[in-house]
């Protein structure tokens, strides 16, 4: 019987890594959005916070697009 421990380890590392990374980046995006609201309330400019939020959400969107790419076999044949 053959168990591919290396592949199993790879699944573990990749999935934990990707899941944690996406959630962390998304959380920072939300944090930045919330800072933006506070900045605007105080009459400050919120360009930095907004840019940060957009960067984070773009990274998450890219991961989603890659996810769809993996799901749909027609895209990677």
């Amino acid at each position, binding site marked *: *019987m*053959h*168990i591919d421990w290396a*592949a*199993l380890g*790879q*699944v*573990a590392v*990749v*999935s*934990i890594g*990707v*899941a*944690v990374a*996406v*959630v*962390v980046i*998304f*959380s*920072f*995006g*939300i*944090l930045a*959005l*919330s*800072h933006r*609201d*506070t900045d605007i309330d105080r009459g400050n400019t919120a360009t930095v916070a907004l840019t940060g939020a957009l960067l984070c959400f773009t990274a*998450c969107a890219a991961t*989603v697009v890659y*996810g*769809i790419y*993996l*799901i*749909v*076999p*027609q895209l990677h044949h």
Partner: protein
Amino acid sequence: MAHISVLVIVVIITALAFDFTNGFHDTANAMATSIATGALRPKVAVLISGVLNLVGAFLSTKVAQTISSGIVNDRLATPAIIFAGLVGAILWNLLTWLFGLPSSSSHALFGGLIGAMWVGAGINGIHFDQVISKILLPAIASPLIAGVAATIATYLAYRITHRANQEPVTSGFRHGQTVSASLVSLAHGTNDAQKTMGVITLTLIAAGALAAGSAPPYWVIATAGLAIGLGTYIGGWRIIRTMGNRLTDIAPPQGFAAESSSTAVILSSANLGFALSTTHVVAGSVLGSGLGHRLAQVRWSVAGQMALAWLLTLPAAAAVGAVAAAVATRGTAGVVLIGLATIAAAVALYAISRREPVTAGNVNDIRPVVEAFSTAT
């Protein structure tokens, strides 16, 4: 398709019935946490999930050409054996649904086929080494990996956002959850509908209606996709309640962390060729999202019931499949007898479920299903 016998038609209908139970059993996997956190209204959630399952069925037919990823010897399978295996899987799926237990539909199908094969074609028809490396190992590893990912992700999500204004945080995570839940539904459609396509295609090959090694005909893809999509839309509310509300209390950050972890595990393992059960992955993630926030919130008794159902799924479906095969392989009368018995059992289980119905309306009311069930009987 000159000579399709009545038996083949019966097998096809039974396979579609299994596909339907597969759909409503697994709606919870994608949508339970979104429904629990209010990210999606229950009816909207099952509609999205149903449509994406249908779409997914059309996208991929790669694994549809093997009935069970080499777990049983497909060449020895006769229509009667396949029929008996499906009966085992359907009955176990209905029973676990009645108790609101999220068990793996894949394990039910494999179990049913193993049992039916054992009785119908002998022990040589089963590849036990494959059973261990393709069923047992992923069943233990995948919920653990998903659980660890969700625990860390949940902890960090709260850590990062806890000082921020909570209103935008909650709504932000809700939006994120909708996307990750949709990905799970799509991935589910590309995987699970294929099992039924595989069963139908192999039956047609066994009956001589298709050449060996044929891809599933278009009508098979369409009917299998419709059956699983419809099943998903009907919604296994009893199971959704367990997964979304009874295992642990889920807030939007936890829901998002759990869905993201499930998606990551499902996609990375599919990409590396591991067949795993979405049910196990999602349950692991939900549990992890509970652990990552507040340890005490996880209801270990519910988790225990669920783990027990997982352990029992394969042997129980195998036992039903074996009994069904013993009768069904004796000829047309045997098949008819098993068919009628299955319909009777399904109607009975449905009738019992009506005593304490769980619907889109009360899916978020928390009351233990088993307790509610015993007061009702």
